[in-house]
């Protein structure tokens, strides 16, 4: 094979894969933009003959309130867990204490466990705290189970900051919080970007906690509402697809705008790779 032909084959394979990854988005769009009358198994691959935003209107009517719930859940949970992770990462990297190297892996294990193994006590505890079924309860859950990953990302980031810098500040009489405020925090933006995007995406997309903790449709996040929408057989495919696109939109938008931070979060989640 000549060089030219092999380059062509190379791009051909890449384009074929690109088509595979885009296929579901194509289907979401063309089905979501069809009117109910036009959704038909025989013509499901055909483009809509006329654009209809009716499905999106219907999907928004059904999922709109849950979309708001997801925002009310995701924004505070993301911010709180980023702050907490930053503080933990700072202490575990620059203020190590006796036992901190044992503590860290014990914290990390928390991000791998199947959450089924804590769900029953979690529900019992949230009921006792009168937080069961509420968005605040779900915020608490995401903050607590977000501690391992956010601590990991910040700790690894702060580990790259020279300890001499911190030691010098200590000699100059700076306090723990002073060093954080004036030295570490101002250079933390990249780590905050990674953690905020990571937490935003995972909390927005999360389903298991949401479906177990919020039974009342009025407080359910959008993933649960979409699940229920798709589970009821009377709801048409066009509305389901429009709903799915709606539910995916915020995280897709974040990905398109801030993708490189997202990738870093992914790789951090895989530990040291």
């Amino acid at each position, binding site marked *: 094979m000549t060089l030219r032909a092999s380059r062509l084959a190379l791009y051909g394979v890449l384009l074929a894969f690109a088509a595979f990854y885009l*296929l579901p988005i194509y289907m979401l769009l063309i089905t979501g933009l069809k009117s109910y009358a036009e959704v038909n198994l025989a013509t499901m691959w055909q483009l809509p003959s006329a654009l209809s935003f009716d499905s999106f209107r219907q999907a928004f009517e059904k999922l709109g309130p849950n979309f708001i719930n997801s925002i009310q859940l995701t924004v505070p949970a993301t911010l709180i867990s980023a702050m907490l992770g930053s503080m933990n990462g700072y202490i575990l990297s620059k203020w190590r204490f006796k036992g901190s190297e044992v503590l860290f892996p014990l914290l990390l294990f928390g991000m791998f466990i199947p959450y089924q*193994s804590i769900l*029953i006590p979690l529900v019992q505890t949230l009921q006792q705290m009168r937080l069961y079924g509420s968005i605040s309860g779900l915020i608490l859950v995401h903050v607590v189970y977000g501690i391992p990953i956010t601590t990991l990302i910040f700790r690894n980031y702060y580990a790259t900051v020279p300890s001499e810098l911190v030691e010098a500040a200590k000699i100059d009489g700076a306090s723990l919080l002073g060093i954080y405020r004036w030295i570490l925090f101002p250079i933390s933006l990249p780590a905050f970007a990674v953690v905020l995007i990571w937490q935003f995406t995972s909390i927005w997309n999360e*389903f298991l906690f949401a479906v177990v903790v919020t039974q009342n449709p009025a407080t359910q996040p959008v993933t649960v509402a979409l699940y229920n929408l*798709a589970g009821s057989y009377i709801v048409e495919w066009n509305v389901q697809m429009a709903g799915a696109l709606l539910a995916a939109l915020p995280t897709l938008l974040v990905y398109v705008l801030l993708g490189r931070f997202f990738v870093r979060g992914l790789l951090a989640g895989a530990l040291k790779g």
Partner: protein
Amino acid sequence: MKGLAWDRVVSIVLITPSVIAVAVFVYGFIGWTGWVSLSKWDGLRPNYDLAGWVNFDRLLNNSRFQIDVRNTIVFTLLFLAACLIIGLLLAILLDQKIRGENLFRSLFLFPMAVSFIVTGVVWRWLMVPSSGLNTLFAAAGLDFLKSAWYTSPTVLHIQPESGLAQVLARVGLGGLASPNFGLPLALISIVIAAAWQMSGFVMAMFLAGIRGIPEELRDAARVDGASEVQVYRHVVLPLLKPVTLSAAIVLGHISLKIFDLVASLSKQGPGFATDVPAFFMFQTTFQGDHFAQGSAIAVFMLLSVSLLVIPYLVYNIRREIEV
């Protein structure tokens, strides 16, 4: 000096809430679930009276759970193979000084930003047996690819009367010729959707690994007369072993826990063909109110994930301390 001692106190005070939260919500709750799995709690009202190993006994003899174990093993193998092969292939292709590399990389990776629920809903529509991909395959003349997808009750397995079964029986492995050791075709639908979502992530890991290999190493091999294929085989691939291990652990623990995708794509499937422990646990506990039984499933899930993850964590921590 007084300031430093005070800072010591501040550092402990600041980290304590997180430590207590994880101690209670992770370790305390795991212990609590362990207790429930040994209890008589059946029904909405908690009952912590000890029942012993009954729930585990019952679970091991439960045919749905046996099917779930088979499904988990089959799913894990296929999912890992699909993601690792596609991920490595894409990483190597993108390493060829591709024009528009960033665009391709973003395209391959974007499914990671989407919820498993969305993925399940879309692929359920794409794999509707009466249309969807089947129509596409028919139009392309690829009829042999048409499938009943997630609605297929078929389990491929070694037929008991076949020659292979007789050979196996002779070496004492006759038991393998049964659906218990088969491949449920419906599970392939879940593998495809899951690989669509996760393979880009593996590509990103491999690509980061490849880019971490010093160019001089590859150049040295080329100077020695190695072809590009040989460079990958003998220089790049061996150096990617740690990345492959990390990717396999991450994918493995996802597949042992998989829930959202199954719940939204096919639920338990015909004859539990796509059922998994996480979904069984969810139905048993939160729809059936069999809390002790559900906890036993949860304990099994935790054990399986721990077997995979704990050695990996220990290995990583050791390596870090050595450095």
